[in-house]
Structures are given as structure tokens and as C-alpha cells.
């Protein structure tokens, strides 16, 4: 039954997972490229001092900081909206499974 619940979640989330994973890979590649660029022109030590010593992230890769938040919100919406829209939560409530298992709070 838990496999079935995970199967439903996967159907809801799979396109979101692919898109978000793609965006994450692209943004990380961009970040690595930017860091290499700064190291090449300003030196690794100066960049290290700038990021750590002044407690600042590089201006051009600040989105790395908000990416987990955006990803989390996107997953929450993708999971929540199809489940709740049009009273569909009633379908889940009637499944012959305990509420704890339904919400994946219990695995056995």
C-alpha cells in the first residue's frame, strides 16, 4: 500500500522533479562557471576572503541561496494542489490505510 501511495506521489511530481532537477543542474553549472571566472581574474584567496571573511555570497550566484526554497515551494504546490483541488482529498481519506501511513508518517 505504501508503494501505491509513493506511486501516486511520483505521478504527481515526476515532471516537476525533472524540470526542477534540470534547473538545479543548470544553475549549479552556471555557479561553478562564475566561480571559476572570478578565481581566474581575482584569484582564489581574494574570492575566499570576499565570500567568507565578509560573510557575503558572490553577487551573481545569490540565486543558489534561494534555490532550495523555490524548489521546496514548487514541490509542495505540485504535491498539494492536485490532491486538494475539487475535494479530491476525500478519495485519499477513504483509502483502506491508516492516516499515519497515508501521510507517510509510518512505514510499516
Amino acid at each position, binding site marked *: *500500500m505504501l*508503494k*501505491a501511495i509513493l*506511486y*501516486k506521489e511520483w*505521478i*504527481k511530481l515526476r515532471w516537476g522533479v525533472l524540470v526542477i532537477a534540470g534547473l538545479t543542474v543548470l544553475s549549479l553549472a552556471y555557479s561553478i562557471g562564475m566561480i571559476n571566472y572570478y578565481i581566474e581574474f581575482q584569484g582564489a584567496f581574494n574570492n575566499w576572503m570576499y565570500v567568507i571573511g565578509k560573510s557575503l555570497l558572490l553577487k551573481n550566484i545569490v540565486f543558489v541561496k534561494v534555490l532550495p526554497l523555490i524548489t521546496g515551494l514548487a514541490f509542495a504546490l505540485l504535491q498539494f494542489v*492536485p490532491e486538494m483541488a*475539487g*475535494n*479530491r482529498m*476525500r*478519495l485519499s*481519506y*477513504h*483509502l*483502506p*490505510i*491508516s492516516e499515519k501511513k497515508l501521510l507517510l508518517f509510518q512505514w510499516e
Partner: protein
Amino acid sequence: MEHVIECKNLTHYYGNNLVLNNLNLQVERGRIFGILGKNGTGKTTTINILMGFLRPTSGNCLVFGEESHNLSPQTRQKIGLLHEGHLAYDFMTIKQVEHFYSRFFPNWKADYYWDLIGKLGLSDNHKIRNMSCGQRSQVVLGLIFAQDPELLILDDYSMGLDPGYRALFIDYLQEYVHEKNKTVFLTSHIIQDVEKVVDDTIIMGYQKLLLKMPLETLKENFHRFEFRNPRAIGVVRSDDDYISNVEYVNDKITIYSFKPLKEVVAYLKKQGVSAENITEIPMTLEEAFIGLTGKY
């Protein structure tokens, strides 16, 4: 006789608005019950309580001996629910939804599902969200049949269905429940369809149960009489014992009663009303429903 559903003194308020007032009803195993009533009489509230989505203000409702708002997973396994509007996981395809539900029911009968789906002529990868209401109703019905439940609760199954899909739904339901001796509790606004399938009728009025009896008993014992007498307009009034309802159209008087013709005529005579040309007019269930509940 064993009761699959048993509601005792069911009372429910929405704020200060009383919807159900001490409703008592029992549903026996193997019977098909149709619950009828005008809008606002508490049909949906009763169904929501039975489905466990609403806790009554007072009284209780037992389904297979358990409180309906606290059913165990084992009991939920025995109940097939058809939600109003043929609710389904519409982000799934025909194949995915069957795969998903089959994991929850040990007696899963996939053949029932695929037999109904085969009639639609759609690909297995067709998404439910892209189906018409009629096609979705077949998917939902197929899932309920495949679940092989002991009790089917069908909330307004005819909603949004054209006559063809309604007939298809009724045909399959009739065949399934009679072959398998299932218990069914259903509501619908299309009374002529209900008449084809139910064994027992429950008719709800505002804050009270008007009647609960086998359909055949209702048909045999509930009568409609018509006569013309201009002097009787406004004189004949309904009461609980002899006259359930009275309608006037010009000088035509229509009386609905559980008493036979002779007794009604004698009662009218006692009231000083002459009904010499009185005749009984046969009724459909829909006409009997309107006769009992009134047109307004």
C-alpha cells in the same frame, strides 16, 4: 435481519440551522436503498456523515458496526464510495488509476474494470482529466466494481450524465448488485432511474423522514385521487392520517393518500365534501415523490 447501516437519532446543525432532526434509519444487507428528497432536506449531509466526512452534532451512525466518522481501514475496504461529481484522481491515466487502487484491495477484480473501460474505446494511457463526465463515471464505477465491496454508497451518481450514460450506469449497476447480492445506498435527482433499481425508498422532508418503505409497498399503498368540485376548493386540507397532500388546479382537486379510495371518500364526506366523480390516477415514483413532498 442484519443491518449494514444503522443511524440512531441523527441530528445535525450548520450553525443555528437544523438540517437533520433525530433521523433513524437502518439499511439491511442485500437491499438497494434510494434516498430521495428536495434540495436542503439533508440528503448530502446524511451521505457525508455515512461517508465519515462529517461528524453529526448528536446521535450516531454505524456502518458495519463502527462509527461512520471513525471507520477502520478494514471496514473502509468493504465500502465502495462514489463521490458527487464522479470524483477521481484525474491526474492519472486509465491504467495508472487501476494500478494504484488494485494495491489496496485484496479481492481486486480487474476484469470488471477493464470490461467497463473496454466499452469506452479509449487508450489505456488516456488521462482521466481529459474525459467527459460520462466517461469518467464509467471509470469510477469500474473501480468500485473491481474493489468488490460489500456496501456501495453512490452520491448523486446521475449528476452530469446524459441519458445514454445514465442508462449504461444503471444497467451495469443492476446486473452487478443482483448477481453479487450487494447492499447499495444511493441518491439521485433522476427519480425515474432510481425507480428502476431500488428495493427500498427513503424520502426525506425538511427536518424529518417522510417515509422509509419498500418501493413495491409504496406503489401499492400510496394513491392519487382526482375529482372536480368548485365548492371543495380550499376546504380539503392535508392531515397526517388520511390526506398526505392536496393540490388545487382551477376546480380540479388532487389528493395523495395512503388510504384506499373508499376510506378517503368516507373521510371527505365527513368533512362535508362531495367527491362523486373521484377516480384514482396511477403514479410513477416521481409523481409519488412530488405528491408526498409537494411541488414547492
